[in-house]
């Protein structure tokens, strides 16, 4: 057996994750064992998506799919070993991180997301928990179990994607068509969370998520987002004004103006006006001081 499973480190609805070793190279790896036996429909959809999209991408900021094998009726995905994730770092109050560290994480995350988008792949579940951290400090976009190819203009999609707190307004409205802009929104929320060190838009349920989102960022109107009021759930909404720059400055005390502009660009209500990954990467925030910390130098 080329791979050993040494320690169970996690269990989800469709997979169990083990830490292990690749025998021939002694490389540390993670094995995601898909519980095929519980799915009578053959190879599981989430596993198929994960294989399909990871196979297309070789990028420093996207998790590497090392190998795939079948053992005792179960499909096993061999992934690179990533000991930490951004959620763990945010929650661990003993870790102090600097604005330069945040900039480094944002840069790596956006590079990974941009690589997905230029390969016509939507991730659809970006959250701190899915941004894994390699031993050398590199961020790796992971968990492509919900990913899909960018839809054609006429394709209908499910809006029931992305973990609630990171869900873009068009998804909250139940849009049947959306774009890679939903991923950018999630990164914007993650950016805010890194600066605040608490979740930025923690809705208690789907209805509350709209309330929390629009209270913080303003309820979108037809003026900035034509026909937004035609979404069925729109007329029940409380109309909040968008926050002034001053209010944002007070909320994000340590953020530079360029940092706020980037966040505002990512958290633009109208998905067509929202910044895309390229705009984000070219933002002045990444060019101004402080320079992003070398990933391996981030203290954790």
């Amino acid at each position, binding site marked *: 057996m080329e791979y050993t499973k040494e320690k169970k480190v996690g269990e989800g609805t469709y997979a169990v994750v083990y830490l292990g070793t690749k025998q021939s190279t002694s490389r540390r790896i993670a094995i995601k064992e898909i519980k095929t036996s519980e799915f*009578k*429909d*053959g*190879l599981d*959809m989430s596993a*198929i*998506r994960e*294989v*399909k*999209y990871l*196979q*297309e991408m*070789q990028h420093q900021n996207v998790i590497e799919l090392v190998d*795939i094998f*079948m053992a005792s009726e179960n*499909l096993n995905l061999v992934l690179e070993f990533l000991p930490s994730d951004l959620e763990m770092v945010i929650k661990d109050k003993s870790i102090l991180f600097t604005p330069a560290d945040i900039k480094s994480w944002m840069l790596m995350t956006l590079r990974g997301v941009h690589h997905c988008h*230029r*390969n016509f792949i939507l991730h659809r579940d970006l959250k701190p928990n899915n941004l894994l951290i390699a031993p050398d400090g590199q961020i790796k976009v992971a968990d492509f179990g919900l990913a*899909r*190819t960018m839809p*054609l203009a006429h394709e209908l999609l499910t809006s029931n994607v992305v973990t609630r707190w990171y869900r873009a307004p068009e998804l909250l409205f139940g849009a049947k068509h959306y774009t890679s802009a939903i991923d950018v929104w999630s990164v914007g929320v993650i950016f805010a969370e890194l600066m605040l060190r608490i979740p930025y838009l923690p809705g208690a349920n789907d209805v509350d998520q709209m309330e929390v989102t629009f209270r913080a960022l303003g309820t979108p109107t037809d003026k900035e987002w034509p026909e937004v009021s035609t979404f069925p759930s729109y007329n029940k909404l409380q109309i909040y004004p968008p926050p002034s*720059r001053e209010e944002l400055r007070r909320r994000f005390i340590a953020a*530079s*103006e*360029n940092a*706020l*502009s980037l966040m*505002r*660009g990512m958290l*633009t209500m109208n998905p067509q*006006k929202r*910044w895309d990954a390229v705009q984000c990467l*070219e*933002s*002045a925030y990444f060019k*101004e*001081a402080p320079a992003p910390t070398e990933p391996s130098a981030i203290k954790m």
Partner: protein
Amino acid sequence: MSTTAQPKDEVPVKPANYRRLTDDDLFRHSSQYRFWSFIPDQLKQKRIELNAQAVASTEENLRKFMIENKDYLGDEELKTLEEKAVPVNMDEEVKLVNFYAKKVQAIAQRLNLPTEIIATAITFFRRFFLENSVLEIEPKAVVFTTIFLACKSENYFIGIDSFAAKTKGSKTEILKYEFKLLESLKFCLMNHHPYKALHGFFLDIQVVLHGKVDLKYMGQIYDRCKRRITNALLTDVVYFYAPPQITLAVLMLEDEALTTRYLELKFHGNTESENPSTGVSINFDKLISMINSCKDMIENASSVPVEEAKEIMAKVLYSRNPQVLLNKLKRKNSSENPEDSPDKRLKT
């Protein structure tokens, strides 16, 4: 630290050496290019080797069979075995696979699947038999499996119960080779089909030839090109050309004058000069000759007649199961009515 806010719509100034990856660069990173694109000699070599291996093991099994049964084999039996239990050669394999690839297409169409999924099923099926010989796995055995996996891979989930009911297939049989299929595909499920490129060219032709093309006519050729693309996916052009190249060849087949005029206006002006926004330079004459060779390959692809497919299938069957052939001979000798003919098997 700068305090000037960047207005939302401002385009950042780009450095002088600014260059983005082109679509060509990205395509070269795709699994379709890395694992499933070949130069013609490579593909031929791959097929020759695959067939040679399968033939060797089939012949080995035949020899064993003859040795084990030498006491029961008379002259007539030996002669029949020699004549009919012959492993198929490479050309016959390709023909049989192409014949069944059309069946995949027909069945997927009968299931009313979207065009892209039909294309993926055809692609999966043909790739499977670049890795497995028909002498090892009967094409028939993976027809439903490829359609089933293509649906899942294209995010068009049909449960196995419902799929089996619709195809009147057996669940166990459908799932039996699913992992083997995934493995043979080298775990590459992403397909870039030429339909997206068709949509792009369709829009671009209308821009470039604005006022010179009839929109209704464009709509007609769009639909016809879509069908032509599906047929092109049944040929080897998919291994030699990138999807947009296939699309251009198909457009050329559909309306040579229109396509040539479009390409002249689009590319002739900047022969050998680099397009500054993409960094790509396209040589017009090279482009035309490439499209024409792709077009010729699509045009010259011949379909395999049912009779020929049946003959090939019979060879596959008899060389893998010589006993079947002997049983048939026995029955033929004792009655005039052979039951286990390959004809009957093919129909199921």
